[in-house]
């Protein structure tokens, strides 16, 4: 067996290992939850994962085709005594084809991305009726400020919830991100939300929860020693529960 066959078998073996690993780590190929955390928590989740999946398909096909071609070439054109390589300097047509095809594919991806990007990030598209929360990140905790009954910040009935973000379900929420010391990043994996909180800036980030429950709040930007501990919880309430919770906190806030 010559060397290159052994190589090929190694490669094939490796591919099998990877595929087997992937298959046994997850229940099915259509349900993404085995690759990614559950995405049905926010309105962005499914759309974002969908785009991810589209790119996975596009790049996946390119990946399989190119790697297999490479392997086939390696096998087919391996050195044989007495054979001479063909004297070819290139082909304009081929170049034109793959340049345009690549260009078209990536441009399509870019413009397809634009829609979702605008939806999530365009400052003019943040829903006007969204519920406002201020979030001050500091080493190493998350301080969410709620406006209280008057709906205004910086008034006496504001109150703070530390490391737990309470939000209502089915209602857009805008979190105004601020940072006290260094840059942190507001990361809600299940919501597919991530936005840096930069000291000296106020960065709005909006999303809408679609499911009641408890989820993770993480810090995704290196912010010092305790970066890895800077976690919190997001609690999504039903709208009624949320109002109750607000009222309760306000009362507590007014008591002190």
């Amino acid at each position, binding site marked *: 067996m010559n060397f290159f066959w052994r*190589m090929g078998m190694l490669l094939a073996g*490796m591919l099998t290992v*990877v595929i087997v*690993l992937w298959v046994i*780590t997850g229940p099915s190929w259509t349900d993404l939850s085995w690759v*990614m*955390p559950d995405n049905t928590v926010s309105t962005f989740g499914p759309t*974002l994962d969908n*785009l*991810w999946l589209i*790119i996975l398909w596009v*790049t996946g096909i*390119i990946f399989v085709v190119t*790697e297999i071609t490479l392997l086939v*070439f*390696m096998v087919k*054109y*391996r*050195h044989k005594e007495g054979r001479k*390589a*063909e*004297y*070819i*300097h*290139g*082909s304009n047509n081929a*170049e034109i084809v*793959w340049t345009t095809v*690549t260009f078209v594919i*990536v*441009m399509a*991806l*870019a413009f397809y*991305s*634009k829609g*979702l990007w605008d939806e*999530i*990030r365009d400052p003019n598209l943040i829903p006007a009726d969204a519920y406002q929360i201020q979030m001050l990140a500091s080493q190493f905790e998350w301080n969410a400020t709620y406006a209280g009954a008057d709906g205004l910040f910086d008034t006496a009935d504001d109150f703070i919830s530390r490391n737990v973000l309470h939000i209502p379900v089915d209602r857009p929420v805008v979190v105004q991100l601020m940072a006290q*010391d260094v840059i942190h990043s507001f*990361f809600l*994996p299940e919501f597919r939300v*991530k*936005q*840096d909180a*930069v000291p*000296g*800036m106020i*960065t709005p980030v909006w999303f809408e929860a679609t499911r009641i429950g408890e989820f*993770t709040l*993480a*810090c*995704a930007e*290196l*912010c*010092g*020693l*305790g*970066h*890895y501990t800077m*976690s919190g919880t997001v609690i999504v309430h039903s709208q009624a529960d949320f109002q109750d919770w607000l009222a309760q906190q306000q009362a507590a806030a007014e008591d002190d």
Partner: protein
Amino acid sequence: MSTTTATETHAGTAEHHELSFVRKYIFSTDHKMIAKQFLFAGLMFLALGGLLAVMIRWQLGFPGRPLPVFIQWIFPDTMAPGGIILPEFYNSLVTMHATFMVFFALMPLMAGVFGNLLIPLQIGAEDMAFPRINMASFWIMPVAGFIMLASFFVEGGAAGAGWTSYAPLSTSGEWTGVYMGQILWLISLIVLGFSSILGALNYVTTVMNMRAPGMTWFRIPLATWSIFVTAWLLLLAIPILTGGLILLLADQTLGTAFFRPEGSGEPLLWQHIFWFFGHPEVYILILPAMGFVSEVIANRSRKPIFGYHSMVIAMVSIGFLGWVVWGHHMFQSGMNPLLGMTFVVTTVVIAVPSAIKTFNWMGTLWRGNIHFDTPLLHAVAFVALFIIGGLSGIFMASAPVDIYIHDTYFIVAHLHYVLVGGSLFGIFAGITYWYPKMFGRMMNEGLGKVHFTLSFLFYNMAFFPMHNLGVQGMMRRIYDPNQYEYLQGLQPLSTFISISIFLFATTQILFAFNFLWSLRAGKVAGNNPWKSCTLLWTTPSPPPHGNFPEMPIVYRGPYEYSHPDREEDYWPQDEPPETSEAGGQLAAAPSPEPVPGD
């Protein structure tokens, strides 16, 4: 071949001026010696960066467990009491790993080694344009490296704000607990900048001004082309970083507020400056490898490179486009969201020249006569892995998808696919391919193949699953992911990755052994073991001082392999064309006269 004999006579004459040991091996101005110096220094730093990586992987694979065996006694209590890596030490490890790898291992190994070795030899010059500046360019590097190393031993330990050193985290020890270490990090990189600039200006001048007669722009071998483009990137990107580092240093030491919000400074400005340098930097780290790979693939498949002109154009356009995409590192940084789409478009457009390169390499293999030597295996692995790394780049280039995968292990996977799978395998291809020219001996082929095969296998086992960690939402630069409940299930995968890395690292011992052993015991190489066409291989191995006995004349492109009218399957660039009886096509061989525009 007359050239060969002529060269050998010259080798004799080179012995005339005996240089003292110091002038020959230490303060040498000979580009080939400087290349070797860069090679040894670069490999040392590579090993160091690799060791740091292994420690990172120990912590991630076995969080909170003491380092195994005697290693746990090495570290003082400020780093790893009882062998258990502290969070602050972990941050330093990550920062210094990336810093050493990027600035002290890969940059010297690519531009430093091969820029110096290849440029004069491939274009037919006797040395660099400024040999003494060249020497300075090398000697600044270990000085900077020493400063960087020293930072491990100062109070507070080495810098720990990531290799990106985002302000304001990096502006004050108050936030990280690292005071002196961060300052030394800044100083070291400022110093290192001079090394790169001096090297780059030498490469640029040499390529522009010192080509042998007939060496038109489009007869320059692709490796030299790639380093030429890289040199331009270095030349224009490094000063931007230096400026930024100086301002950051002022914020640290003088108490200015360029990037500190307390004084209305702008943290995002640092990010813009860093990435305006940083993105060209990553192409600095891959373009030379692309050059080596082009060289190796064409030679080992005994075929002209497919689409030489478009290869050159692709490299130049990667060089240009690299300047206008930096914002893709900042999609989630709070940057003006309206800039987002601009950067998405510019970023994905880079896939086009990259596609040209990839498909042209495949086109070169197509209908070739592929010899499976170690350099070729590394080169093809480069192509295979660069495709993976490049394609994962497309995910992040889509700004909305990047929202989720930014700052996760998906990024770590991407960057190691392009930097290890791409650049490092490219360097392996380069070293194994040009080793005979540098040292006059071949590396051991069998050992080389074993090293390649195991590396390739363990490499993929280690880094491919990182994509999975990333899409599961595991953040990067996390000391202990188990702090997060939703990441706890990923620990087995992390451990698997770590074990694969240990295997990968162990495999590199084979390479080190092969490298060192072959210096003395390798098969004697002869002038042209790979039967290559470029001028480099017309010289003896290793080439004497002054390289060529007389200035060579170039008659054709660098990849004239398997010409149908010739018996030999290669046609050296400097072999005079035969008389017109050899066939009409030959007589019309490109004229060696300098063409206008050169």
